């Protein structure tokens, strides 16, 4: 489940703090985002990478820095796409059931 991925990604106080900062609006660079997190820069980078893997944030190179952008659009699109395919499969499997359980055929 996508929701599970989101919760998993957010199920860490540091990552949650990163997302909270990003939701305030202004774009952050990795360096700015890593400030005052109470962990090493390396550690912060790792946590940001987890958020990237979950498609919660995107990284955008800007000059010598990298910007971190909250990416809710990707999540929504992916969720809609998957939900649609799921309902299609639901229908197809029911069609398969109707066909194979039908005693008048075969």
């Amino acid at each position, binding site marked *: *489940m*996508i929701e599970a*991925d989101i919760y998993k990604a957010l199920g860490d106080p540091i990552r949650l703090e990163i997302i909270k900062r990003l939701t305030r609006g202004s774009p952050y660079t990795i360096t700015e985002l890593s400030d005052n997190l109470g962990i090493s820069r390396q550690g912060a980078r790792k946590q940001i990478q987890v958020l990237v893997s*979950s*498609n919660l944030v995107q990284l955008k190179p800007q000059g010598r820095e990298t910007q971190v952008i909250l990416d809710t659009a*990707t*999540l929504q*699109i*992916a*969720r*809609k*796409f*998957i939900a*649609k*395919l*799921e*309902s*299609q*499969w*639901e*229908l*197809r*499997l*029911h*069609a*398969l*059931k*109707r*066909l*194979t*359980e*039908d005693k*008048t055929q*075969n």
Partner: protein
Amino acid sequence: MQDVIQREIIIHATKERIYDSIANPELVVLWFPETLEGDYMVGEQTIFGFGEHGKTSVYIADAKPYEYFSYRWVPGSQHFVGDVLSVANTLVEFRIEELADNCCKVTLTESGFNHLPREFMEASFQQNSGGWEFMIARLGDYFTANK
């Protein structure tokens, strides 16, 4: 993002009958694509036809009579005809498990969504996609035909 779709259904039929309905080209067109072109065999690429909604190439990946059948395709309404293995695709797997006499659990798994580019998923919505409506129409036909 979510990489896998999984759906299960209990069907009161033999595993042979269910398997045939999935793997036999003459039966699969009764519930899934409307038409089928080419060899519906492991290692071959077949084209599923969905009437006016287009055609989609399908690469048959594996078939183990009465319990497993799988293929690769490009999901969604971005109907792709060509070499499926040359583009981002998903693996569709059907597993049939016999629970009791004349009763099976069919598990459908589609995986590989993580490989699909975002633009692709976006396009799938912008296009007036007919997959859903098509299935409803097909189901309707089926019910009417069996009344």
